[in-house]
């Protein structure tokens, strides 16, 4: 066995796995859609508008329902209290036209 054989085999294996991950994302869009069906049904039944990803504060729980300036409500230069609130994008009234 040559010195380069194990290395080439390893590279081929890694490259194969890489291509498999790329192919995997397009392989079964039907299965992916079916997996999301129960979530979509629940969202439709209850009229949910936001994911339960950031449950630490009211305005981070329902970002789409909160006032746009909720994360900056104390005063304009206030440091945001909640960690996920500090990662919120500042409102962009110029592009959204929803300034409040």
């Amino acid at each position, binding site marked *: 066995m*040559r*010195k*380069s054989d194990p*290395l*080439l085999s*390893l*590279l081929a294996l*890694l*490259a194969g*796995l*890489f291509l498999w*991950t*790329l192919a*995997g*994302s397009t392989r079964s869009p039907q299965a*992916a*859609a079916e*997996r*999301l069906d*129960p*979530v*979509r*049904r*629940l*969202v*439709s*039944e*209850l*009229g*949910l*508008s*936001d*994911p*339960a*990803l*950031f*449950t*630490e*504060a*009211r305005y*981070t*729980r*329902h*970002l*789409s*329902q*909160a*006032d746009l300036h909720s994360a900056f409500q104390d005063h304009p230069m206030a440091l945001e209290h*909640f*960690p*996920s*609130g500090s*990662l*919120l*994008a500042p409102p962009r009234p110029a592009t*959204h036209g*929803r300034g*409040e």
Partner: protein
Amino acid sequence: MGWLRHQRYLLDFIIASLLRRKGKNLGLLLVYSLIVFMLASVMLFTHALKREMGQVLQASPEIILQRIEAGRHALIPADYLRKIGRLRGVTARKGRLWGYFYDPAVRANYTLMVAPERRLADSEVIIGSAIARTRGIGPGDYLTFRAHDGEAYSFRVRELLASDTELFSADLVLMSERAFRVSQGVAEGWYTDIVLSVSNPLELAKIAEKLTLRLPDTRPILREEILRTYDSIFSWRQGILFVLLLGAILAFVIFAWDKASGLSAEERREIGILKAVGWETGDVLRMKFWEGAILSLMAFLLGYLLAYLHVFHASASLFEPVLKGWAVLYPAFRLTPVIDGLQVATLFFFSVFPYVVATIIPIWQVSVTDPDAVMR
């Protein structure tokens, strides 16, 4: 065939050369893979989450109508359902009742919601899996709330919401309308907001405009705005994570550049000897090209595959503290593997190409000089 054999001999030689400086090269491979892993994790996670949000939120209400009082979201009178009147394109309208409850026992915020379709008795609730996990309760157990008037109400948990819906239902407590009104102090004739169903999405903007004219103290939130909010939030968060990683990336760039471009005396001597024993400049360049390419390709593949495992098979557990913040309830969810080819191509280009270039240039400078001068 001859060319291929030539490259194989070069590869054999490179491996021997890399193994001579085993510690240094393995260290480089490790740091290199780690940087690719972090960048790829952020990219894969954000893209998959954005895609999933986009697909699921397509099922959310077309229009949510909030009443605004002194600049804040306030309860909306049931009378507004009548005041909206007949609007062309609106197929259904109903009031929603929902709110929040802070549970001091586990210091968690719950989202209370009325679910008329579930036909719950006034003493029953359906809860999200994250609440059940945190409180250590299950179907048949009791959940006690302290109501707005200080009274304690106990509800029997009828069932848990399916765990595969946790991304949206982790903190939900579904209850009957009467239970909600009594425990939260919301009088009859009031709702939290109103949802409208619209069959033709092209009419949404016009309907929203009519709503604001008829009910000037309301704010319509369109589904497109919800989708846009999440799209921009995850892009913004991805950007912030990249900025946080920038320090680490720069440190790596300096390290890799120094390693790749600054030739040690030993390496110079090696090139001098190779040229003295008859190697051509092209051979030396090819050898160094392969060396750089193998190292960077290996780091890219290892980093990317680890990131894939982390995001899609380990629930992106490293990002949990960032997303969770101080929250107690956090959904356990598994994302569908969706990969953006362009993003991966960009990551590949920026992680492999600069390193290979940084390896080749100094070698070329050394290998075109006289072997005698290099070895001295």
